[in-house]
């Protein structure tokens, strides 16, 4: 059973990120069409969409490296444009393509980007050491990054975004091409950061990453935000249902008939191991299900709940799979 990510408690502090009616065109191509969303402190917001949906363009405008044709981006209460450099100190952008100096060591790369963020002296040295530890690269700090594996480079790529302890961390497909171990490490780091109050904007192709990490999800397609909400909200929005698989013995036919009469149960059938139900929301319904089964003379020995995933939601909303 997937554990839903709990949304952070409402925070009285201002929003970390507020995106309003963002537009961007490249010639005839309208890449981003009125995208709006917001992120609170400590919230991890997932931006889902297939290639060419407008995710990277949206993210580059939020990171202040691409000028928007219309709309507004506000970070920590201050409006961001490509020329308002001071606001950028609130943002840590981790680009999709690893952007490191190959001929510089990990430490030199971190020190350089730290200086670009305005760090210096002991603060810079301390943060470089901390990030080297965080990314598990302390023992390779003096090696040129050209000698690093893909996973190490990815970790350093993320580390650079964390150097100045930004209020908003933007991660653009951070786990692409990363081995399983590095991927797990990266996801742990992201979860750790949000638990410390950092807001994260996370884009990925991997549904399971979004389901594991993100409090809320925005689905973008053809430059438009087509749906937004928590995972449960999105599932409800598109009418997808939970599947409850019960391992049981006894009068299964009687049990199935009685369960199908319960509110919230849309379908009840008999399987080789027991029974299968299709319900709106499994969690609050389960006590009544077991009570009904007992009264029907059915002995249940196990239960498994399968919640609909975001892939199904995405498919429902766009008519195509996320990685098409």
């Amino acid at each position, binding site marked *: 059973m997937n554990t839903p990510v709990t949304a952070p408690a409402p925070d009285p502090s201002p929003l970390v990120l507020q995106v309003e009616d963002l537009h961007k065109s*490249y010639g005839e191509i309208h890449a981003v069409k009125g995208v709006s969303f917001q992120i609170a402190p400590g919230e991890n917001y997932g931006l889902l969409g297939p290639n060419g949906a407008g995710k990277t363009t949206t993210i580059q405008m939020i990171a*202040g490296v691409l000028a928007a044709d219309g709309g507004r981006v506000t970070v920590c209460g201050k409006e961001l444009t490509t020329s308002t450099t001071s*606001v950028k100190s609130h943002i840590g952008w981790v680009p999709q393509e690893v952007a490191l100096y190959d001929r510089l060591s990990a430490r030199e790369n971190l020190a350089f980007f730290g200086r670009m963020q305005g760090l*210096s002296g002991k603060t810079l040295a301390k943060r470089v050491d901390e990030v080297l530890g965080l990314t598990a690269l302390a023992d390779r700090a003096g090696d040129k990054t050209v000698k690093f594996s893909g996973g190490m480079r990815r970790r350093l790529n993320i580390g650079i975004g964390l150097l100045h302890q930004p209020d908003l961390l933007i991660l653009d497909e951070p786990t692409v091409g990363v081995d399983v171990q590095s991927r797990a490490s990266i996801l742990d780091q992201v979860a750790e950061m949000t638990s410390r109050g950092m807001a994260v904007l996370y884009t990925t192709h991997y549904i399971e990453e979004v389901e594991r990490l993100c409090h809320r999800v925005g689905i973008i397609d053809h430059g438009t935000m087509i749906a937004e909400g928590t995972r449960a909200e999105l599932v409800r929005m598109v009418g997808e249902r939970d599947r409850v698989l019960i391992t049981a013995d006894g009068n299964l036919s009687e049990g199935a008939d009685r369960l199908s009469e319960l509110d919230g149960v849309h379908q009840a059938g008999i399987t080789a191991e027991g029974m299968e139900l299709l319900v709106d929301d499994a969690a609050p319904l389960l006590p009544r299900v077991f009570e009904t089964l007992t009264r029907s003379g059915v002995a249940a020995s196990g239960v498994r709940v399968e919640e609909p995933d975001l892939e199904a939601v995405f498919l429902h909303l766009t008519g195509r799979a996320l990685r098409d």
Partner: protein
Amino acid sequence: MKTLSIGWVYVLRILREPASLFFFFVFPVVMVFIIGIQFGGQGGRVELGVSGDTSQAITDQITENLTGNQALELVFYEDDDEMLTAVERGHISAGVVFPPQMAARMAVGQPVLIGFVSAPTGLGPQLQATVQQAVTEELIPYRAARFAVDILGVGFQQSFPLASALADQVILTTVAVESVGESLFPPGLGRFDGGAASNLVLFMFLTALTGATAMVSDREMGLDTRIVSTPTSVARLISGYVAGQFGITFFQGAYIMVLSLAIFGVDWTNLGGSVLLVMALSLAGAGAGMLLGSFRLAEGATIGIGVTAGLVLGALGGAMVPQELLPDTVQTVAKFTPQGWAMLGFRDLQWGGSVLDVADNLAVLAGMGVVLAAAASVSLRRTLARPS
């Protein structure tokens, strides 16, 4: 501070590229040598070899007379054959061989044969006349003393001191030679001097332009965009690139100057002025290189355009052929090239000009650098605004 950080990283990563080491350190020296040899035959001091018995008082006098000629540089050899080989191979223009006991033999009326060797082509006849005159001046007292011995019957030991004392009063008839028109090369300019100056300008600018590839590489790796995502403006980014490329180009210029001075004895005439010109040219070159790098071009195309532009601008600016030899139209065009201003500056310095005399050259070159860097900043902003 950020500008210096960006500039330092720019320098560091280039210096850590093995291929760059050859391009920045070895290649310029090779070119100084090759082009220096080509320029060696024009306007430089003529090297005259001296060998044989040079320990005599009369040979000291003759070589002193020759040293007085500013166009000549004497090269002494201990071995006659070694000097002959040097003449044959063109290392020196001609050579003089002094026989032993010249004074003693002339005192008793024996003939003395001073050897003169030169290559079949070149400055042999002119040098022979120069040597002849230097020898003749020293023979006057010997001839006069011998005249007294042979005609008047006076002993050589008595007549020679008198003849020597009166020798300065003898009026020699010489042919006065005067050149008309302006020489392309000032008197005293070494054989490598002119070539090294043009070589310096040509390669410094080429280096600066091809340095644009580092910027293209940064953009392709997303480093430009990443830097701009920090509180660092595009203008600051460009200023860092310009600072880095300026450092490399200036270092290369200074490197060529020092090596050419140490190895080939190039006389930069006004070292301070030359260093300032190199600095100003480095700034103009760095600005031009970063403008080229700011365009949305691939690395290969950038190298091609950089080399071509460097050679064409170098030719137009007089870094290959002196501007004075170029048609008037090209000389006008040269005024729009950094190389043109740099070459005119070096020419002025070699003709004895001061830093003040090249102040306009310095100002124009520095101004070009600033304008080109500003244009690069605008261009890079536009390039980064386009989808990758």
